[in-house]
């Protein structure tokens, strides 16, 4: 599937036979592996638990017990990550849709401005954008006599939504441009307005093409939510740090970190697999 920003045109003839297998975005799934990877990770966890167990024979609490003991707390932190990722994705998608429309606007100034916005947010590091939003946005708004609080996790969500917005705008633009011109012409000859064509004819056809890269970005975003811990939002990595501090045992470091890696893997890997499968299915048509 051709997504925006690939700039692959130079080599087009070479790619004909391959359906651009190599032009897919970063972080999308690779070749088909089964759950063996998960099993490998689980093996890592188990061995590290065993090692830690051997090292800490004299302590009465086993590593597995400790992991189980802290699981509810970690689950709470992790669900907060998921909440942030879902909200950021929602905001990013809606904003990105309109930014994508601005990219194909008929008005040159709108096109130019949106191009600058997209380039700016796509090419800036996520962490810097997060800092930008965290520091430069007020922690509360005064509106019509009311004070609307603006907690830091909402700011972090907005910060994470910015790169999603820019990347989704490019996905929208790529998808709209991949719909054949005859669709536009046919709709125009039926006296649809430009807005109607875009919303009722072009966009519904784009959904299928936008879905795989969109899911891909959701997986990337979920992994990026851990960045929020750096700017002081207490999500799962903060929880992990506190657990390690509370236990104060160095042999716990590897089990706990592998444990949380496993959580993310279990959440993100199926998304990558489904993305891959959808990509293949849509490419065949």
């Amino acid at each position, binding site marked *: 599937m051709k997504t925006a*920003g*690939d*700039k*692959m*045109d*130079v*080599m*087009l*003839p*070479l790619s*004909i*036979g*391959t359906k651009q*297998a*190599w*032009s*897919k975005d*970063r*972080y999308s*799934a*690779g*070749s088909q*592996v089964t759950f*063996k*990877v998960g099993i*490998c*990770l689980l093996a890592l966890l188990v061995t590290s638990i065993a090692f830690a167990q051997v090292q800490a024979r004299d302590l009465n609490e086993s590593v597995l017990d400790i992991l189980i003991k802290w699981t509810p707390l970690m689950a709470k932190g992790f669900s907060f990550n998921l909440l942030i990722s879902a909200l950021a994705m929602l905001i990013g998608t809606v904003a990105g849709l309109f930014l994508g429309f601005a990219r194909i606007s008929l008005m040159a100034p709108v096109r130019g401005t949106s191009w600058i916005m997209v380039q*700016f947010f796509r*090419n*800036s*590091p*996520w*962490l*810097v954008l997060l*800092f*930008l939003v965290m*520091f*430069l946005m007020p922690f509360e708004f005064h509106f019509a006599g009311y004070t609307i609080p603006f907690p830091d996790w909402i700011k972090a969500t907005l910060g994470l939504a910015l790169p999603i917005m820019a990347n989704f705008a490019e996905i929208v633009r790529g998808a709209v441009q991949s719909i054949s011109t005859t669709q536009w012409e046919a709709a125009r000859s039926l006296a649809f307005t430009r807005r109607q064509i875009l919303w009722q004819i072009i966009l519904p056809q784009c959904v299928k093409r936008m879905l795989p890269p969109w899911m891909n970005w959701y*997986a990337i975003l*979920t*992994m990026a*939510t*851990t*960045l929020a*811990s*750096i700017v002081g939002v207490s999500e799962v*990595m903060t929880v992990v740090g506190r657990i*390690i501090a509370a236990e104060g045992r*160095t042999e716990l*470091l*590897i089990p*706990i*970190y*592998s444990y*949380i*890696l496993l959580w*993310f893997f279990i959440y*993100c*890997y199926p998304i*990558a697999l489904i993305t891959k499968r959808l990509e293949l299915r849509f490419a065949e048509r």
Partner: protein
Amino acid sequence: MHYFENWFKWLYQTHGIKLSIFYDSYDRTRFFKGLVTTLELSAYCLVLSLILGALIVLLLGSRSIIVKRCTNGFVQFFRNTPPLVQLYFFYFAIGPLLPKIDGTPILGSMGWAVVSLSLLEAAFVAEIFRAGIEAVPKAMTEAAKSLGYTRLQIFRLIVLPLAVRITIPAMTNNVVNLVKATTLAYAIAVPELLYMSSQIWSEQTNVTEMMIAILITYLIIISFVTLAMHLLEKRLRVPGFGQ
């Protein structure tokens, strides 16, 4: 130079725009040190990830199923877990296990950042390489085979030169992502651009100005990377392909 510094001082005194990195020599040195560290980190990771990525592709093509599965597992692991957690895992969990020489660890925060980001990037580079090799038309290798080339010759003289050219656009994306990923090293106190800037803004309380300064700096770095890769792409273009 003197005039330049004075202008920024004037800008601060009259308009309150405090770009201390342009007139304060201490801040300037810190900022440039951070910039150099970011570039160094990117360069090390790029070279290491290319080597490791090529190695992974070789292993993926291995005849042994176990080697293949393990390599694939490695790639999937690094692609589907948060880079920040990987960095923490290496620095906080694996780091203390390594032996120390004269009380100092073998790998400092910079070293672990290089290791962690290189492994992460290697997983992506491997996918790009693999796809690039697969994208070489079958007809090419068949033609070469019929001309009596050996397997190694086909790979070295036909597949590899074409595959390298095919991968360049995807590689451009990857290098850009690598430069962006170096900001993660901030979390383990590697003195790179973001870390140095955060020190400057907490001392000078000029968050807005520093934010804009580093964003523009990153955009400049990335524009240079993209430009260089486009030039390379043009340079290596095979006549008869594309427009």
